[in-house]
């Protein structure tokens, strides 16, 4: 955590803006269709109103993935930006740092299937009510799933996912969600469900895990984080007034 960061400090905001990496134009469309904003700020992260938000949100763009390749990461950035878009209600999954969250998760025991039963024989054609029956762990689902998604998009929509316009990306995601024909290596629904589940996790989990930057997910819905004591509030039919607080003590 950068402790001396003053959220409202314009100089610091300018510093963060300048130090952001140049993002290729092809990736811009993925950022919630925010091309106009990008052109004015030189930053693929659109301007978010309010003094407290900008500096920590800016860090979302600074992250260098450790599991995903550059191409894979472009897919993740583009996909989560459509699943939870930046819109009039505020930042979306991309701005909240969900791609960073997902990449960080790839280096946890969860992503290697460490607490799943992974002995064979495997029966991938089992009825869905019997639960997950593939041999793949989370890392493998992403690697194969991103590659399959890009191939599917190229074949059916003419370009890799991240290069498609937003409406076409939505079409591709909907196809994957409902079971896309010709999706190679694993069922598209398995990949979609993993991606969408992890996107929600990254948007709504404590910022300690790399997503939900500036607690934008919590602020969207009114979750106060680790506030921990509601003895005076439990009986009140009115909105809880305090902004969220994170495990590390950041306040929203």
């Amino acid at each position, binding site marked *: 955590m950068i402790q001396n960061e003053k959220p409202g400090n314009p100089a610091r905001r300018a510093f963060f803006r300048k130090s952001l990496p140049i993002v290729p134009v092809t990736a811009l469309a993925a950022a919630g269709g925010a091309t106009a904003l990008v052109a004015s700020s030189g930053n693929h992260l659109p301007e978010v109103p309010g003094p407290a938000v900008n500096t920590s949100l800016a860090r979302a763009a600074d992250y260098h993935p450790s599991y995903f390749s550059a191409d894979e990461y472009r897919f993740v950035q583009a996909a989560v930006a*459509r*699943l*939870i*878009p930046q*819109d009039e*209600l505020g930042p*979306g999954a991309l701005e909240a740092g969900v791609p960073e969250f997902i990449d960080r998760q790839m280096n*946890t025991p*969860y992503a290697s*299937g*460490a*607490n*799943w*039963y*992974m*002995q064979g*024989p495997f*029966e991938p054609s*089992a*009825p*869905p*009510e*019997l*639960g*997950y*029956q593939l041999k793949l762990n989370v890392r493998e689902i992403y690697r194969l799933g991103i590659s399959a998604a890009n191939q599917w998009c190229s074949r059916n929509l003419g370009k890799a996912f991240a290069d498609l316009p937003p409406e076409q990306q*939505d079409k591709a*995601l909907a196809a994957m*969600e409902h079971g896309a024909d010709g999706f190679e290596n694993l069922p598209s629904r398995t990949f979609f469900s993993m991606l*969408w589940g992890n996107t*929600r*996790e990254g948007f*709504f*989990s*404590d910022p*300690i*895990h790399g997503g939900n930057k500036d607690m934008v*997910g*919590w602020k*969207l*819905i*009114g*979750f106060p*984080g*680790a*506030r*921990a*004591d*509601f*003895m005076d*509030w*439990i*009986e*009140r*039919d*009115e*909105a*809880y007034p305090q902004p969220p607080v994170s*495990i590390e*003590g950041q306040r929203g």
Partner: protein
Amino acid sequence: MAKTLPKKDVVVLGFGWTGAIIAKELTEAGLDVVALERGPMQDTNPDGIYPQTMDELTYNSRRKLFADLSRETVTIRHTARDTALPNRQLGAFLPGNGVGGAGLHWSGVHFRVDPMELRMRSHYEERYGRKFIPEDMTIQDFGVTYDELEPYFDFAEKVFGTSGTAWTVKGRNVGAGQGGNPFAPDRSHPFPLPAQMNSVSARLFGQAAEAVGYHPYNMPSANTSGPYTNPYGAQMGPCNFCGFCSGYACYMYSKASPNVNILPALRMDPRFELRTQCQVTRINLAADGKTATGVTYVDAAGQETIQPADIVAVCMFQFNNARMLLLSGIGKPYDPETNTGVVGRNFAYQNMATIKVFFDKSQHTTNPFMGAGGNGIAVDDFNADNFDHGPAGFVGGSPFWVNQAGTKPISGTTAPPGTPSWGSGWKKAVAEAYTHHVSMDAHGAHQSYRANYLSLDPTYKDAYGNPLLRMTFDWQPNDIRMNLFMQDKMSAIAKAMGGKAMSLSGKKDGSRFDTNSYQTTHLNGGAIMGSDPRTSVVNRYLQSWDVHNVFVLGASAFPQGLGYNPTGLVAALAYWSARAIRDQYLKQPGALLKA
């Protein structure tokens, strides 16, 4: 080469609620007790400290306190004609892992039992006739009555520090108009603590339930309404409704757990020893098969170890108890073809339905992140046999309730029907719904059937090379009929709340058991108690009919699933069994009842 340790008086398999209770009772009786826990040491500190514990991703999504399936799981199939497949990821149910077991991560809903549910078959036959019970339904009586268990319910509540509102105490009405449950059986004492405050959601539910003619009451909660010291001297702090009960260790020492309420007292007793990361693989039998000589386990270093003992208390999670008996050759395995044998028989679950009501933001703000696991308002008008089942045409009942246990944002975002599943439409809907909705459950009883049973899997093995347990399980027509009935009755409450939208999730004709989505961790049976060794594994004192120094505790003893959550009855039966061991078995070891 297995290492053999010096003999103990008692070896306890598993250290959750029943393991802690039996260990405490038997060390008090002067015995040397060792508890073997397969998982790691866990406790309020460090596993439940503030603010680190308030991490939904780590604890709930990534299953920190739940069973590690990479080591052992169960296989599941719908019918005996199917091939069972492993439950590879936790979903429908969430057994615990480590010290405290599921008692560390449970919610704290702490009921007794409706007395008729202890004599389920007799009651239904008396009131509705023998033919009312479907032929393939194998419900039974427990073999013990509410009056016999009452002192043990009473003591368990004192150990747990349970908050609630009594209806009658020694026959005197104290709860009318105070939040008591008119359907509740008589009590020898009030609850140790008064009921907790209620959330807005629970209050709205109570008002609506009353408006449609039902009888709302305060749920009994093992979350403290105030500071408390239990009979063992264990101290609890007052619950502050932080909302992190289910799936978490309580940093306020407010939610009862074996770790908070019993372990501190046991730790002071030199006759008690707790060994963690010890996986029991077998209960060892003497040559004649009539007594157990102890257990074999694999310790943390991988060393196979024999622990001799005079008494073996099997206190693992429900299905692990049944599996341990099958692996050890104790009791005859159940055969559904011939309806003979006992181990694995009467496997049952619960039968849930959920309704959510969505308010306009000008109507109500429900702050769903606040709450406590056991806290809420319920109605018992359709629980047990509190209504005429004749025209309804099914066996079983459901309490309905709102227990706002703390709805966290990853798992708890919700939206009215018709909302897009992602994108801006989803985002807008969840943002509006989160603090303006209420969720209520029909928490139904579940009956046992010939078709639903436990056995060893022929294919899949655990990390130690032993066969996994196989569940053969599906919803039967009686379950679907009951669920549809309860959805209808609970909808009356939901509609009376006057929200702008409503969503319903429950069973429909043709619903299959689905392992993916959480239902409850309330699994029952497999090593059931009863009065006939041909149809039960243990007698009314939870003593094995076949091997007299083996006692099998927990919900594995339930012949069918209750309407209420099981922990209250699990704890009362553990104290009841412990008392029988202390007062009868130790004086004259042998079968406490003639087979």
